[in-house]
Every structure is written in C-alpha cells, then in structure tokens.
C-alpha cells in the first residue's frame, strides 16, 4: 500500500501522517456509493413486485456475477481476456456432473464448482503472465476454445453436443425447492451475487486491489516500488475464476441443463460487451451492464425476433462513439452532472 502514498515527492513527514493520509485515501475509495443504496434494495423488492419476471432477473443476476468476475481481471488487473467463459463453462459442467453423480444439494455443488474452476484459473494464470495484451487475448481465447472442443468430444462425460441433461437439483440447503416461477432460483442467485460482489468489493478496494491497479497502469514501475506483480496477478485471476465458476454453476442449477454452448466464444464476447456498456473498474459496471444488456436484448428480440441483433449492434456503436473516455465510469458522471446542473459544486 505504500505504492500510492507519495513518499517520493512528499517532504520528510513523520510516518503517522503518511499512514493517516493513506487510510483516508482508502476510505474514500471504498466508501459506499449512492447507487449501491438503490441497486440492492431494488433487487430485493423485485422479488415481491415483479413475480412474472423472475426468470429474466435470474439470468441478469448470473450474467452480472460473471461480468463482475471479469471486471476484477479486466478493470483492476488489466488483463484483457477473450476466454473468460472457460471458467464459466467449467463451473457449469462441474455443477451439472456433481449433481448428477454425487449430491443434488445446490450450495454444495456451487462451492465444488467454484473450487474446480479456481484450480483451472490458478493453473492457466501462469500462461497469462507471459506476453502482452495481444498474446493474452489469444491465450485466453485458445483455452476457452480447447475446453469447448473437449466438452464436445468427451461425450461419455459431458453428453457431447447434445448437452448434459437428466439430472435434477435438490432443494436449496434442503429447504427451498426450485419452483416453476423461478422465485427461489432468483433469491438464490441474488444471494450468491450479493455475497460474491461484497467479497470482490472488499478485495478490489483493499491495498491488494490498489496494487492491481498499479500493475495495470504501469507494470515496470509497480515492480520497481516492490509490488510482486506475478503473485498479485495469479491471485486476482484465480479469484475471478472462482467467481466465474459460481456464475456457471448457478446457470446449471437454475436450468438443470448444460450444453457446450456455455464454453462458446459468444459468451466471452457478451460479457466484454456488458462491461463496455456498464463501465469497468468499479465492479458495479458488470451489474449495470448486465441489466442493460439483458433487458435490451429481451425487449428487442420480442419486438423484432429476426433483426434485434442489428439494433444491439447499432446501439453499441453509438455508445462507443459517444462514450469514449467517459464510458468507463459513466455512473459517476450522473451525480456530478446533476449537482452541476443544480448550481452546486460537484
């Protein structure tokens, strides 16, 4: 954490002051933002207010979790990944196989899926350490493609292209059955999303998270001030893999079905898009992006089942053209603009 306290330029002050300033900085960074007060109560209220939308909300929660995990590697550690779905897919298959062969209780399955995909994340993180952004793109993409093909070929284990089916999940914690309206499924996914996001938040706004940002903006410099870049990246990548594994497991458990599609390229691409829409580097971008992307997609595909992709594409182009630099943190601009408009100081 000594990385960002400016001991190199500051005149000799006593350590106490330095430390206090660092603490202040940390506290400011990790303060609770206004949108956090809106998003979580709204998500809980939806259980009672929108009973007919449980399924799409479940999908949003899963996608949000997946996007938050990518934000941890992309927005904080600066690793551009085109194959993040590898972990999502591994989590999905693990949860499916676990429910089928061993134990049908979802929470246990969820944890097992997280562990397995964390192991994969740890193992592959060493490949990510090598090379620049372009090689990372290719490596991550390659890993996801290889796993996708493996899932397709190993029909005896995964059901091949037909997908893994014929298993059903038990009640959550032995108490809550998955119902046809998807209510319990949504509550379950929301709970997992909340807990995981809080953990990710704690990690991201800790000195560890700051170290990641330092590595992201200038790896050489970070190394010079003594940040162990390799170890930090390995840890961040592994944590993100665990979270993505959770997301995959949730998908399997709420649909009781897995197809090789969970490892398909378009999932990695979608989750990147979500971060483009929602913004990177503050975790909630994944959640906002997932809400925006899914609602938009659902609405457009009902209005025009054949051409909705065109409108999504158009919207993204506009978003990138208009947004540019601002895009990363648009949510922060709203209150600033609002207060500015009302004549106050931002």
């Amino acid at each position, binding site marked *: 954490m000594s990385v960002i306290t400016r001991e190199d330029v500051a005149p000799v002050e006593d350590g106490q002051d330095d430390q206090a300033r660092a603490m202040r900085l940390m506290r400011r960074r990790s303060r609770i933002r206004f949108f956090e007060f809106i998003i979580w109560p709204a998500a809980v209220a939806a259980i009672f207010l929108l009973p007919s939308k449980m399924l799409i909300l479940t999908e949003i929660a899963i996608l949000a979790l997946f996007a938050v995990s990518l934000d941890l590697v992309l927005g904080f550690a600066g690793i551009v990944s085109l194959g993040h779905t590898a972990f999502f897919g591994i989590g999905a298959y693990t949860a499916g196989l676990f429910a089928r062969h061993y134990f049908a209780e979802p929470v246990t399955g969820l944890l097992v899926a997280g562990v397995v995909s964390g192991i994969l994340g740890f193992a592959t993180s060493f490949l990510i350490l090598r090379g620049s952004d372009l090689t990372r793109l290719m490596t991550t993409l390659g890993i996801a493609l290889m796993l996708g093909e493996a899932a397709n070929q190993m029909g005896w284990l995964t059901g091949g292209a037909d997908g893994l089916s014929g298993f059903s999940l038990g009640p959550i914690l032995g108490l809550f059955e998955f119902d046809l309206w998807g209510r319990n499924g949504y509550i379950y996914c929301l709970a997992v999303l909340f807990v995981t996001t809080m953990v990710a938040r704690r990690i991201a706004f800790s000195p560890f998270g700051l170290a990641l940002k330092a590595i992201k903006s200038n790896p050489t410099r970070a190394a010079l001030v003594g940040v162990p870049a390799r170890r930090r990246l390995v840890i961040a990548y592994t944590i993100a893999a665990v979270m993505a594994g959770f997301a995959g497991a949730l998908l399997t458990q709420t*649909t009781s079905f897995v*197809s090789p599609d969970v490892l398909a390229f378009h999932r990695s691409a979608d989750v990147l898009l979500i971060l483009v829409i929602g913004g990177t580097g503050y975790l909630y971008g994944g959640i906002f992006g997932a809400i925006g992307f899914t609602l938009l997609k659902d609405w457009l595909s009902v209005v025009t089942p054949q051409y909705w992709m065109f409108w999504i594409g158009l919207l993204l182009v506009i978003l990138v053209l208009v947004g540019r630099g601002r895009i990363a943190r648009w949510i922060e601009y709203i209150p600033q603009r609002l207060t500015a408009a009302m004549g106050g100081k931002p």
Partner: protein
Amino acid sequence: MLKRRSFMAAAGVALGCLMALPAQAQEAVKIGLVLPMTGPFASTGRQVEAGVRAYMALNGDEAAGKKIEIVLRDDAGTADQTRRIAQELVVNEGVSILMGFGLTPLAMSVAPVLNQAKIPAIITSATTSAIMPQSEYFVRTSMGGPQSAVPVATWAVENDLKRVVTLVTDYGPGHDIEKGFVDQFKKDGGEIVESVRVPLQNPDFAPFLQRVRDAKPDAVFVFVPSGVGSLFMKQFVERGLADAGIKLIATGDVTDDDLLNGIGDAAKGVITGHFYSANHDSPENKAFVEQVRKTNNMRPNFMSVGGYDAMHLAYAALEKTGGDTDGTKLIEAMKGMEWTSPRGPIMIDPETRDIVQDIYIREVKEVDGELYNVEFTKYEKIRDPNTAK
C-alpha cells in the same frame, strides 16, 4: 376505455402492486413457438415459421371453436435461452402448447419445464433419438434419428454399391445417422471401408475428401447439417471425386430444397434419401408450396414441413379434446394420430411419440429450369431404428 385501463396498469406498476395480476385469458389458445431466428441456424427458424404461417393461412386460425394465437420467440440457438423462454411462455403467457426447437440441445433443455408444467412440446426440427425419452410430453414431426439414412443403406446394396465410406459431421445427429446407416448396410451385406467424422465448427472437407478418394470406394455416404451442404458439394466437385467414379449418396440435408439452386449443377445426379421434397407430387404439397411461395417468397424445405405438420397436430389434438387445453389430455390425443401431410402419409407412434413416415429415394434433376430432388422410389412406414420397440 382501453387507454384508461392501460393508464391504470401503469399506475399499478408505479405503485408496484398490480404486477402480480396475470394477463387476462381470453378464449384463445396460445402456442409458444421457440425457434432460432438469429445466429447460424436462423434459416431453420425462418423455414419452420413459414410452415406454421402457411398452415394457418390455409386452415384458418381457429380450432375447436377457439382462436389460435402464435407467440414467436427467438432463442438464437442457445440452450439456456430456449429454456428460459419456454418457461416464461408457460408461466407468463400461459401457452398451452410449445413448438419449435431447432437443435437437439435446445429441445433437451426444455424437458424439465415440460415435466414440471405438464405441457406438450412439438419438435419441428431437432432429430436425435435421445430427445424423446427425456419427457413424456415430447412429440415430434420432423424426423427420428437415422430414419432417413437406413433406407439409403438398403437402396445402396440393392443397387450394387457394396463398398462405402461414410462421412458425417461429428455431433449427436451425425453419430445417430452413421450408426443407423452402418448397421443397416452391414446387415444387408455391404462393406464399410472407413468411417470419417468432420468437425462441426468451421468445416473444411478437403482433407477428409482426399482420404475418401484414396480409399477408392464405390460410393461415399454423407450427412452434414443443412446449410453446410453447399460448401460440401463445392469441395466434392473440386476434389474430383465424381471423376474418380465415386458416387455420392446422402441424406436429404445435403441437397436441402432451400439451398439446392444455390449449389448449382454440381448437385445434379446426387442420390439422397429423405422424408420431404418440395417436388413431392400430391395436392396437399402443391397447396403448401404455393402458399409458402406466396407469403414468404421462398421454397419450403423439410424444416418447413415440420412446422406445418406440428400445427396440424396441434389443431387436430384440440379438435379431439373438444378445445380442452389440459396438457396431459392433449398429449394423449396426439398419440396414434394419422394424417396426410404434404410429405405423404404420416403417423405419431403411440409408444414413442415419434413420427412414422415414408422415406423417399430421390435424384437431383432439373425441373422447369430449377433443381429439385425428384423422388423415384420409396420405403414405407420407417421408424427410428434406435427407439422403435
């Protein structure tokens, strides 16, 4: 009145207390049509929808005195979307019958929904044998497993093509068809020289075709998903297999009606076995083809006829139950149903809920300036050999 009601509803949303009310049910029967309308399998969705619309144009939108309403949704060919959409259609829209499902995994993913909600689903496209046992509520109007491949094997042996290489796409339906063909072919006394499998993603057939050529068989039996057929045919000609005296026999997916004219003269003389050709000579088919041409300006293919027959099955089942939309009663009504489809006479097997139909052997020829699969012989009442009891 209407305005006022929608205003009330809007106010209700704002208060957040009226959302729980479901849409009021009228005297309409809703049918949820879930198809890949975008993505790599969009042509399947397009064709099935055309078939469904053609049926409604020809037979009206009423069955058993009730109005039939189609709710079309796009799943883009992804299984979790299919499952969510199907579940939403059941829970929110209150559909009585589900229909569509372009690929095997898409159909598989809705099985738990059907079992829980007890609603019939008519499969218009997906073909693997493994789907049907997943739910008691599946019925199929496309084709079961290697149904189209088995008669091709019999025909090949009868016509002195004794040494054959098989080339199939490496996924569920491909494996089904390979097994069906090989089993029947060996039983009839033929010899399988080699069995080649081509990857599903980005297929390049050149190296595989070279292997086929080196093996010097009498014929090569091919199955590729509809849509890849034109690419295959092009490479087949380029590699000079026809010149080497190797005959091409296939399932009808390769010479899909939708693509046949695009493939061009290279397709001439190819022998295929399938359940439907737009060229089938019957009054039912004439009316069907004309209707699809009129409304969608395209030639229907075997996917389209699957959609058409799915609608017939839904209408007929509703007539039989007297408009009762109870899922279990509907599925009972569908079992054993027989009718004359544009493809010829068909039946729903009461045991397996799968389709029983005639398979035609056809040759690609030019008719009135267009290429068609011209039927010249048929094998009657073929069942899915993998599930038939």
